[in-house]
């Protein structure tokens, strides 16, 4: 009975944004007119239903304890299958409430902010889809399902970062971001391969069993690059500082908020799998502390508001991951949620910085602090990120390969098509 209620609630939680996405995209595909007002109303309804259902789900998890909600099988047969099984417990329901809350606030903000912009529909449709992906990541009962949501979220992030796709630099940065995501995701993919090859299908959530020693260490270490890629930690932090390319609400929702905090969430959720492997835990602590140091140094050098906030948020995520590795999970959760809220708020009101600085001067009676002079070489090193040289080369190389493939395909196309009529008419 509990399972059925939970399954229903989970279905509604996932469906609310998805239905809205369809409601927005179908008229567009059928060439029916869709006003901005309608888009805003659809988003409002979807996010409100989303939040209400998430709260009910949280209440049910709190009152009735952890449960598994099974929504059927996505694909497969008896031997190999991807089950849509969701783990509903206090942590995951809480995460869904946070996602719904942040989604509601930011999309309300975006309704006015993006008024009159030609990409209005694109923004809302992609953001609502991303909310469903985040729900999947939060509620996933297995690593496979989490992986599905994870990948799709990366794609949505890319589409939103490249919102102003007329600018080449914006598109380049978005490409770098998704390449960093994909490079990191290899870790999770390999971990899944290893686990399934060993015949294990571990579940996420409080009921999870520990893995045998070697597999636990391998899983833990393989999850590190995935979390690092998504959260912009070392050695993938080059894209983080340059992520504020899209409109302010999308930067707030994803690169200061929900998407970058998915990294520590993954490590928290998968904790039972590798908790017994000291080397994995040491890896978490090392990754966290190194990232915190590098990103803090970088944040101190940044002159633009959004970049400074996003990178400082990334540094705190490094500390969260170190806290997870040390086993201080309550602190890590509180820290994680607080950082999420703080950075979302700071990015949303980033354009206000001039007025805020003037107000602080009026309140304290002291003039604003000027940047402190430091030697040039450490500054230069910090402004690029301490561990970025190698990965930047790799990503640059990947971009060049992509560019060459693109040029090659264009050559083939023009040869195949243009043979008859080369002359400009």
């Amino acid at each position, binding site marked *: 009975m509990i399972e059925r209620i939970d399954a229903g609630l989970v279905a509604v939680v996932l469906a609310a944004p998805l239905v809205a996405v369809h409601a927005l995209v179908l008229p567009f595909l059928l060439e029916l007119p869709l006003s901005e007002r309608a888009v805003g109303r659809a988003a409002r309804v979807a996010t409100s239903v989303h939040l209400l259902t998430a709260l009910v789900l949280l209440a049910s998890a709190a009152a009735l304890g952890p449960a598994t909600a099974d929504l059927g099988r996505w694909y497969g047969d008896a031997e190999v299958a991807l089950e849509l099984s969701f783990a509903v417990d206090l942590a995951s329901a809480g995460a869904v409430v946070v996602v719904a809350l942040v989604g509601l606030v930011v999309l309300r903000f*975006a309704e006015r902010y993006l*008024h009159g912009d030609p990409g209005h529909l694109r923004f809302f449709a992609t953001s609502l889809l991303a909310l469903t992906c985040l729900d999947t990541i939060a509620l996933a009962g297995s690593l496979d399902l989490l992986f599905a949501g994870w990948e799709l979220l990366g794609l949505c992030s890319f589409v939103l970062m490249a919102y102003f796709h007329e600018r080449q630099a914006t598109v380049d940065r978005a490409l770098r971001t998704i390449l960093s995501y994909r490079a990191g995701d290899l870790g999770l993919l390999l971990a899944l391969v290893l686990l399934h090859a060993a015949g294990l299908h571990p579940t996420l959530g409080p009921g999870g069993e520990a893995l045998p020693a070697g597999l636990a260490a391998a899983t833990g270490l393989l999850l590190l690059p995935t979390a690092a890629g998504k959260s912009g930690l070392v050695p993938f932090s080059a894209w983080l500082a340059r992520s504020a390319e899209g409109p302010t609400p999308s930067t707030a929702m994803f690169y200061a908020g929900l998407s970058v905090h998915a990294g520590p969430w993954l490590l928290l959720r998968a904790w039972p799998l590798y908790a017994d492997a000291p080397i994995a835990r040491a890896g978490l602590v090392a990754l966290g502390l190194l990232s915190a140091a590098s990103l803090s140094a970088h944040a101190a050098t940044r002159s633009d508001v959004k970049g*400074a906030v996003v990178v400082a948020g990334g*540094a705190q995520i490094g500390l969260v991951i170190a806290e997870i590795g040390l086993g201080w999970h309550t602190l890590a959760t509180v820290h994680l949620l607080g950082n999420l809220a703080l950075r979302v708020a700071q990015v949303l009101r980033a354009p206000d910085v001039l007025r805020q600085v003037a*107000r602080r001067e009026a309140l304290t009676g002291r003039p604003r602090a000027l940047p402190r002079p430091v030697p040039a070489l450490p500054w230069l090193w910090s*402004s690029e990120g301490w561990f970025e040289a190698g990965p930047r080369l790799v990503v640059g190389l990947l971009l060049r390969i992509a560019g060459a493939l693109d040029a090659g395909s264009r050559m083939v196309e023009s040869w195949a098509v243009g043979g*008859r009529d080369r002359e400009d008419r």
Partner: protein
Amino acid sequence: MSNDAWGAEAVRRAARWLPHQGPLEVFVHHNTLSELENRPFSEALEEARAVLGARVRLSEPELRRMLADGHIAARDLDDVFDETFRAPEEPDPVGLPAWRPLARGLLWHGLDDVHWRVRAFRVAEGQPDPVVAGLPPDARAVLVEGARRVFAADLPLAIELLTGTAEPERQRSRLREQHALSDATEALATCASDERRAAELGLGLLTGLARRHLPPRVPRPPIDRTSVVDAVDEVLLPVVAAVLDLGQARVRPRGELFDLGLAAARRSSLWRSMAPLVGPDAERTVVLALDAATPEDREDAVLRVLLQRPGWAGAVARREHDRHDVSLLDYAALRLALTVAACRTEELDPASVLARPEAPGPGRGTRAGRVAQLLALHHVGPDAALRLPEASWAAAEQALERYDTHWRARILQEARERTHRRTWLTALSTAPAAKVEGRPRLDALCCIDDREESFRRALEEVAGPAVRTFGVAGHFGLNVRFRGATDVRPAARHPVALRSTHRLEERALGAPGRLRPLAGGLSTGVERGGIGPIGGWVASLVAGWPALGALAARVVAPGWTDAASRRWSARLLPPPPSELVVMRVDDRGDLPLGFDADEAAERVGGLLHTIGLGADAAPVVLVLGHRSTSRNNPFASAYECGACGGTPGGENARAFARMANDPEVRARLAASGLELPADTVFVGGVHDTATDEVFTDAPLPDELGAWLARAADRDADERARRFLSEPEGGAFDASGARGRGADPSEVRPEYCHATNAVFVVGPRTATRHLFLDRRALLHSYAPEGDPDGSALQRVLGAAVPVCAGINLEYWFSRVDNGRFGAGTKLPHNVIGLHGLLEGTSGDLRTGLPLQTVEIHEPVRLLVVVHAPRDRVIGALAALPDVERLVRNAWVFLAAIDADGTWEWRDGTFHPATLGEPPPTTRSSTTWFRGRHDALGVARIAP
């Protein structure tokens, strides 16, 4: 002067083309092309277009729409054409109309540049070809007849012309593709039977003929500079941003820009190519980098490299001018060396990358299509075109190049401005309402700002003849450097072109609320300390959800949250009680603090004398400055009072009122002949143009306060109508309009000067009866009290440059928002607390954002002076800056005196041609009810 000094000289000359905008905290509207003001307007625009590659006026399609809507009168277009057309020296072409009718036909009709694939698709779908459908019927008739004749006379030739080839296979496939015909016989039959298709075939024949006769032109391959520019940006811009930072980053690198740039370059992949180009200093580096270039190209190369990122270069130039702690030469040298190095790395030719960007020319097909349209427009059918001599084809193309879209847009724009001027001059020349006798109950002195025009009108409609309003520049003649009780530094509160003469202070009388430093410290800790590791740790644990909660409250319920926050601020964080020190305190410091009685009397008397307020003053004279409150708006300073130098306008108003109430000042005024009534009290105040609130220094009598409140309501109503988000028709959301300033997600808190068009100097009686749609800046001036014209000179000298700056800033940001303006506000990222970046890369954006200029119609400012003509001429003679603007047609000047209405042209006043009188309406509200668009002038006759 050493051989290397040409570099510094080239940089200095190139700096003319860079934006001159200063740090964003003080936004001053100024002419974006101010360096070109000594050239005539059209010439300056053409040069800007050539050098910068930017659009300099509205596009031809937009202007043509205005022609279709009637906003450009046909006779004005003809007049401008007749005045500006100069026949070229070449003789008229043979077989074609003469140059003049060719040009005129092109002007009136324009050219349709629809891609041939689109046209082929439409034809294949059975729809009419859009280009042919757009031709006038007589042109189509000529095409039909010509096509039929050619098809009948020589079918193979016709098919060959249509398809551009002689091979039968290719002919058949092209006939099918482009004309939806299966073979020659069907073509002949269709031509004979179907008129519409015959016209299309006729145009096709002309195009084919044109392609045969036009000389080939090798299109220049486009050069993709973006990879080079981006590679240079990656290395250079973080260093430049760090050097220009005014307080955002926590640390900055020590050293000069040149050394830092080299240090950054050494760590990049460009260093290997760059090392040989670097000298011991910037000058030598410029020489080495441009070693391979010829002397003419060198100067151009320096300009081009600075124009790769004009915003950043302009910021460096401005900082060099203001604080002398960076050098534009350093920036140029670094950028040049890096660009040449990047070119070598990418194996591109530096000369072509640094050359002037050229739009790729049209291909032969496009050119042929245009010539075909030209011929069709001028009734030269395919049969006549067969007999045209070679030279005429070249002449046709020459005509297209000479009278191209820029020429046509220029004529259309000038015609539009002429229609606009005539409409406005006619309206402003209408006889004013009869002067009301008796003493008014309230006199209001408002700023000349165009946003105040609707407020003044609303106040006058609410209270009737009991209220008089006057327009004065918002600094009220006080060129002060003001420091508030809570300010950490003084700021100039007057137009930026003038110098401060006095200091003004707000003295704290008591202690501020004790929680204020604590609140400030907490905020600093979270915002600034939150960037560091430990501060961020503490801030995220403690301040995260309160911060998001507060923001969420503002987003979901902005009005309620704003009211609540104001209440709590007043209770918990009250500013110290303070008094404004106006009368003279001491003479220490570089400027005297306060005014003594003589100085005060001079200023008060001068201003009252100019506007004609004296013995008939009301018992309450409200001196109203204006300001604008908005959240999350980096352009906040642009919305404040421009006459106060981009700062809020209330303090000057309060000071003026204080001075005018002072008994010693009154005594001196009386002695000099200005006898104010003894019971007249001046009250200072401020009008918030975003929220339509009015705050006064002292409480007003109830009735007057009620008038102000109702006027503010009407003003909000009128403002609300221009916002796109308002529902069509019906009532406007006035409270929504007032709440925009409090909503952090609102990118359009108000529309600022987006409707500016006219500057009127004269008594209010001349404009009181008119609905001016918030398009007019109004300065009061009493001609009878100013026989020698000195007051008029002061008014024009102070106000015209400010108003012209506003008008031209809006012009350029509107016509090319991507190049002269700041782009859309959505990705804006404040950098270094002085500038704006789009996202995290690219150029520093200057100018106004899209959301501010989107409803603006660019027309040059029309300055209308209600004064005798010779007084205006005398004032012009004494004001060289204003005279230059008028002489070069950056602003238009008109005078209205007892002899009629006069327009300034060619150095003197000519009688103006007036048009239809404006329509009449009962009240402002009746006129604008339900309308979102720009309304014309109307006469209000209740």
